[in-house]
């Protein structure tokens, strides 16, 4: 039996980990100081916050016609941007998949996708507003571009990840090319594609409520205008409507995934228990 002196330390101190935490704490202090975050500002801010909240409630829905018009336009932007974006993502994603396509085609396609992803939809929306004027068109084009950046990338990844063995197996049966694609390639990517498409629609719905702030159409414009006129109770009503709309969108997206990925019927959707999100593991890691 070894003596106590020969025992290894039961909880060895990980030097790197500890250094990491210290660095983090130091950074927080440094950055906060840089940003002029003083306690007085926070306190006076909280004071303002109380007044602010008092003016937010109760929400004022009296101008509901304006509200509905804005929401409808946001919906239109979301639907059309998604349709356009997803439609364009298919060929672009295919062109960007390195396993099916030669390098001279895949690299430019990949570059396009990276560029489309790097800029926030709002920035893209501003540029489109400057180019094509205020209104829904700018919003649709901006979100379509953002959609391509996301959907085409994931589509290309899904294609790159397909098991070529399954394609080989179908080819080995002597099937024609169309069947090889249809039975060897598509089933593998279809479930994921549904995942991306529903996610993109959801994401575009969220973004469409916001591009209006820079003039690209939708409820965002109504919100911004109300804000600048200090109609905070109307702002509150708009926010509540946006939240409700997005929650509805999430519900619908979950339903669509259940139908296509889990093979649910309409009755199944209503029978589903609240604790079991459909196709959760077929969902994307990049959930916004």
């Amino acid at each position: 039996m070894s003596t106590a002196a020969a025992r290894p330390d039961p909880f060895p101190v990980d030097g790197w980990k500890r250094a990491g935490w210290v660095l983090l704490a130091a950074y927080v202090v440094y950055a906060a100081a840089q940003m002029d975050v003083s306690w007085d500002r926070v306190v006076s801010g909280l004071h303002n916050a109380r007044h602010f909240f008092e003016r937010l409630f109760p929400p004022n829905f009296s101008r509901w016609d304006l509200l509905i018009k804005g929401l409808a336009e946001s919906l239109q932007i979301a639907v059309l941007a998604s349709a356009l974006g997803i439609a364009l993502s298919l060929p672009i994603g295919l062109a960007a998949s390195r396993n099916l396509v030669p390098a001279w085609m895949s690299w430019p396609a990949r570059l396009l996708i990276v560029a489309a992803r790097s800029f926030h939809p709002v920035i893209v929306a501003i540029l489109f507003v400057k180019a094509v004027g205020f209104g829904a068109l700018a919003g649709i084009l901006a979100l379509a571009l953002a959609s391509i950046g996301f959907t085409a990338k994931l589509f290309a990844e899904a294609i790159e990840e397909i098991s070529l063995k399954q394609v080989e197996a179908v080819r080995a049966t002597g099937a024609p090319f169309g069947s090889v694609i249809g039975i060897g390639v598509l089933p593998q990517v279809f479930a994921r594609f549904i995942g991306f498409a529903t996610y993109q629609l959801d994401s575009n719905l969220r973004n469409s409520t916001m591009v209006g702030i820079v003039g690209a159409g939708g409820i965002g414009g109504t919100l911004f205008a109300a804000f600048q006129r200090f109609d905070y109770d109307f702002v509150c009503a708009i926010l509540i409507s946006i939240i409700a709309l997005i929650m509805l969108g999430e519900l619908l997206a979950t339903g669509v995934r259940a139908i296509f990925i889990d093979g649910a019927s309409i009755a199944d959707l209503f029978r589903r228990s609240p604790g079991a999100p459909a196709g959760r593991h077929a969902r994307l890691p990049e959930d916004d």
Partner: protein
Amino acid sequence: MLSIKRLSKAYVAGKPVLIDIDLEIAARGITAIIGASGTGKSTLIRCINRLVEPTSGAIEFEGRDLVKLSRASLRQARRHIGMVFQEYNLVERLTVMENLLSGRLGYVSAWRAWRRKFPPADIARAFELLDVVGLAGFANQRADSLSGGQRQRVGIARAVMQQPSLLLADEPTSSLDPKTSVEVMQLLTGIARERGIPVIINMHDVELARRFSDRIVGMAGGKVVFDGPPGELTDGMLKSIYGGEDWLH
């Protein structure tokens, strides 16, 4: 030292899995519970420490009826009952030492446990137990780097770390190969006998049960149909417990 009185459990009303079980467990000895799958042996073991809530009946342990205890009192009572699981149930990402010390969580405040400030006596005991189960030197290895047999040894050590008055084992060898199963059973029963801790083991391997236990309880249809030393377990009894003859030979 453990008195089970008229214990019943039905997961679905009208379909009881345990029917009026009466069992007395003495303060020493190895008791093996055998029976076909689904006859309630796992449920019985889990009712003892209320991992499964009994439908009716009493479980008297250390002078108190466990079934009637509040959550806080139950937590305290559970500190005296160690349990070994079929799937080992270690915290995979923690080290062997941390898994051993997790047996003492009932005695250490959450704050001290988080900062890993366990009493030196516990740490000394942990090292000693590691030697006993044959895992000296494994203290700082992650649990998920161990083999099945090694994990179960950690599981046994963790249960013994609690310094329990009773050990429960729910199919402790069902996930292990035959040779390792024997080693683990030797370890478990050896430690228990040496420290004078009674053990109740739920198992499906009759030969292992015969070899290592002092008393066999056979269950069928939710009731106890056999209760006696291994020597009295005849083939005829086994047939009534498990049904069918082909598997006997």
